[in-house]
């Protein structure tokens, strides 16, 4: 079974274009630190066009966190902005790119969203 982290990036790469990033430009690198080992994921954004790689490329924004926290974010169990405020995730460089990319992470797997009262069905 592929982990949520890999799925998140593969899905992003497959999409090729993400309307939510249509106003964004730059390179964002996630450094996932575990002991001495660091895994890199780099996202190049060019007005919505996305290119994902696992190379350690120079980036406008470098985000550092643990693979576990990232896995939870990729699965929707943790939210990125709160993680930054807590210091569990760090940002170096231009934070705007991260704030935009953070919006691509899924909601909580148990989120029920708005429901209509009388039809007893989910709106979505």
């Amino acid at each position, binding site marked *: 079974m592929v982990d949520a982290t890999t799925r998140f990036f593969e899905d992003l790469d497959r999409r090729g274009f993400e*309307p*939510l990033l*249509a*106003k964004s430009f730059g390179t964002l690198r996630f450094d996932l630190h575990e002991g001495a080992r660091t895994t890199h994921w780099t996202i190049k954004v060019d007005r919505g066009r996305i290119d994902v790689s696992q190379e350690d490329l120079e980036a406008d924004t470098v985000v*550092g966190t643990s693979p576990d926290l990232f896995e939870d974010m990729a699965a*929707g169990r943790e*939210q990125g*902005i*709160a993680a*930054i*405020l*807590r*210091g*569990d995730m*760090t*940002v*170096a460089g*231009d*934070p*705007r790119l*991260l*704030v*935009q990319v953070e*919006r*691509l*992470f*899924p*909601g*909580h797997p*148990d*989120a*029920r*969203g*708005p*429901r*209509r*009262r*009388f*039809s007893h069905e989910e*709106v*979505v």
Partner: protein
Amino acid sequence: MAQSNTVRILDGNTFVVCEDTGDIEATPSEPTGLFSIDTRFLSTWVLTVNGERLNSLSYDDLQYYESRFFLVPGMATHYVDAKLSIIRERAVGGSFREQITILNHDEKPVELEIRMAAASDFADLFQVKDEILNKKGEIYTEVEPDKLRLGYRRGNFRRETIISCSEEARFDKHGFAFTVRLEPNEQWDTQVDVQTFAVGPGGRDLRMGLRAHSTERLALQHDLEEWIAAAPKVNSQHGRVAATYRRSLVDLAALRFSPLSLGGATLPAAGLPWFMTMFGRDSIFTCLQTLPFTPDLSKTTLRILAALQGTRFDDFRDEDPGRILHEMRYGETAAFEEQPHSPYYGSVDATPLFLVLLDEYERWSGDVALVKELEPECRRALKWIDDYADLVGNTGYIWYERRNTDTGLENQCWKDSWDSISYRDGTLPPFPRATCEVQGYAYDAKTRAARMAREFWGDPGFADQLEREAAQLKERFNRDWWVADGEYYALALDPEGRQCDVLSSNVGHLLWSGIVDDERAEKIAEHLVGDRLFSGWGVRTLAEGEIRYNPIGYHNGAIWPFENSFIAWGLRRYGFAEEAAMIANGILDAATYFDGRLPEAFGGYQRELTKFPVEYPTACSPQAWSTGAPLLLLRTMLGLEPHEGHLAVEPRLPIGMGRIEVLDIPGRWGRVDAFARGRLDLHNLAD
């Protein structure tokens, strides 16, 4: 919070609230301190000389970011004999700096032990507001030869206060001290620097490189001068309108706030001390009020809110795709998800109001590029209204019911206190609820979006659809919400479609939005300036005679200047210029009792009864949308309206207001002037 003996200075979301001596001695119920990013960084800051507390002779709020205190040792009973003067001058701007100067007026030399007690509880602003103080992390103090470090640690969450001085000081765990000998007429001074840090694991500050403007005093001064120079000039025959305008302009400068992680753009924060942060609703309302005067605020606000528009379902944050945020916070409770403000999306009006502001902004500025840039966000916002906001199903109305039942907001409209929405018998309706003014905003949003779709997005089909939907909404609304026996619109509907049939200020918003049927407008105008709603100062949130009416009920009787400015605008829109002028006159009169700085709310007491407006006990001041109110009232009285590329001016001023001129109003026309003379006799209307 409205303690009259507290002094406040601020820059963005860094601010100091202290006693009139400059001292800070915070207690759970006394919200004094040095605050930044929603955290208290100093809770004790007490200056003594030879063990004695100091007494205030006077203080000056020089600018919003600096103040000066003149002090003498000892208590008021014997300070006339004082042979020492102490001057404390301080400024905020990123960090907090205090200059302490001591003058010896004696003919003999003096030996002085000067001491500053310093400590911090690192309380989250939410904990201060709700008086909860049991910290889950650890507070630490580190004494170094040249500095004192106060800190708080909880996991990777770290906040630190670092205190240093220009003169050599003896630092200890509870503060720092100087031993000084002063010859006759000699003076001594030191500069104390207090820096606040939000430290990440790599020692990197959360806020690094994110200041909107330089934090040096001279730069702040320069920035304020530029801000004032760029805004239109207002001259008035009686001075008071011009003075209120100037006060508002300076307070707006102070309330500009630069959210972390958004590249230094500024938008109006909601208000001091509790709301120095980004609010969807408050920021948008303030922008609408200030558009003719400071249009750039609107552009940045729209961009920032667009950049943080919801993208997913998050029940804890009440987030949906397309929803515009309610409130962002940076403190410990947001970080550890004890509060949902990272950001929280629990408001139903910010989303339609976002569309309203963008269209209004274009009408003034001609900035078509922004309307095109934000087309995707507008479409998502409209989709939210249609797909996710109709919680009852097939009603076409916007309803709210929080999914975060623990820390989410029950009432997600502007009247967000728990008991603001009720039936005439005083009982509270079940959820979901729909309030009337929000349906007005939705109508306005669709009408305006139709114009944008037709003129700028090249989508006439979508424009037709939006206009059809708006027309249907108006028709439905006028059928379902009209309270026949009272001849006004209900405050809200419950999920069964039953009316919350109280008479409230909310009907005033409906005029502004244009959802009121023409033949009903006169009745609504009558209610708004009638005895039950109008106090003589302004329109009460709830009409006198309703069971829950209370002149100092936050949303059940108090008068909110911000709301009155929109009510006046709405009256003017439907041609009730006299009624609009009456409200404008009352609110601007009230402003003079607060030195031009309107509070968040004041009591709904009859004007003849109290003779002066009674400030609401815990009102926030300055508060952005109260600060914006005089500006919108000016616009309304002068009848400033963009019209086919130029600025139409159609003044309707009460006689007592004399002459008013507004010079250099910016817009698509370049800059133009507006002149007005008071000609309306309001007494005729009152009779």
